[in-house]
């Protein structure tokens, strides 16, 4: 079982992801440079948070032309796991591996705080070790996390059970007061139809050890490990 952490110019959560997968999860993990053209045999690609290419033009827009993206597309097409966190989620929508777009936060401010998430789907390789409806506390840190898709696309996501995480209050109620950025239908994370690509705005890699005061994020990485162990 091997994780690959993609380093784009401007990635800044790559070491956190590397630390969690390698030192907390105890898995093999390797750095994938944006100019690399093969994935070094990794099973799960992680696109970490940050500001790839300075977020110029639009967050994630320029990353789609990085040489590493072509093998990532092939990996995803053949069923391999791809996990985008924060900026990584933005990249995945720009690349077209996930539907919709992430826009400027509705209140126009950068949001950096802890929020609560409700686990909506557990039959994905990223959430199989979580329980349905499980509430997770995770940090967010983004200026462009306002998920947008038109109504038809949102209905499609609901129908195909692709909405994996929603912002909620401490009791798990999905209400607009718990929505930190204006995301449509409180969406915090979605997967593709085939369920092997996940993008989410909150940062599980920043809350995966009790030493840091919160290990709610570890369940996501444990799920990935369990899914990879099954194949």
């Amino acid at each position, binding site marked *: 079982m091997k994780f690959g952490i993609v380093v784009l110019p401007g990635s800044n959560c790559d070491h956190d992801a590397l630390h969690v997968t390698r030192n907390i999860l105890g898995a093999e993990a390797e750095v994938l440079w944006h100019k690399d053209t093969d994935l070094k045999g990794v099973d799960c690609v992680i696109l970490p948070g940050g500001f790839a290419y300075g977020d110029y*033009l*639009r967050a994630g*827009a320029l990353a789609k032309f990085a040489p590493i993206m072509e093998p990532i597309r092939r990996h995803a097409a053949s069923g391999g796991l791809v996990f985008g966190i924060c900026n990584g989620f933005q990249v995945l*929508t*720009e690349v077209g591996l996930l*539907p*919709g*777009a992430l*826009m*400027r*936060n*509705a*209140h*126009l401010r950068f949001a950096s705080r802890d929020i609560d998430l409700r686990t909506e789907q557990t039959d994905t390789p990223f959430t199989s070790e979580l329980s349905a409806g499980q509430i997770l506390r995770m940090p967010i840190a983004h200026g462009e996390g306002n998920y*947008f*898709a*038109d109504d038809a696309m949102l209905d499609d996501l609901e129908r195909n059970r692709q909405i994996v995480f929603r912002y909620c209050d401490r009791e798990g109620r999905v209400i607009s007061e718990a929505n930190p950025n*204006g995301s449509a239908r409180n969406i915090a994370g979605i997967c593709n139809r085939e369920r092997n690509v996940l993008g989410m705005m909150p940062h599980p890699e920043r809350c995966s050890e009790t030493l840091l005061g919160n290990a709610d994020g570890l369940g996501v990485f444990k799920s990935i490990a369990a899914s990879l162990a099954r194949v």
Partner: protein
Amino acid sequence: MKATVIVELKGSVLDPQGKAIQHSLASLGFPGVEDVRAGKLFRITLADSGQPRPEVERQVRQMCEKLLANTVIENFSYTLEE
């Protein structure tokens, strides 16, 4: 040849930035501003390739679709001049 490309949010997409600008204009003493939509403008200088205009136009459209606009949320328009 020069291309001028305008990229703006689709009408169905809320533009909080435009709204904030509209409110700022109102508080600056311009009460008549009914709406503001913010967008992006690109001035692109193209080398003279001798290609016919429709071909140049096709390329500019591709630039918009592939990079300059995210067509999930944005529309684009362009003009070409010698």
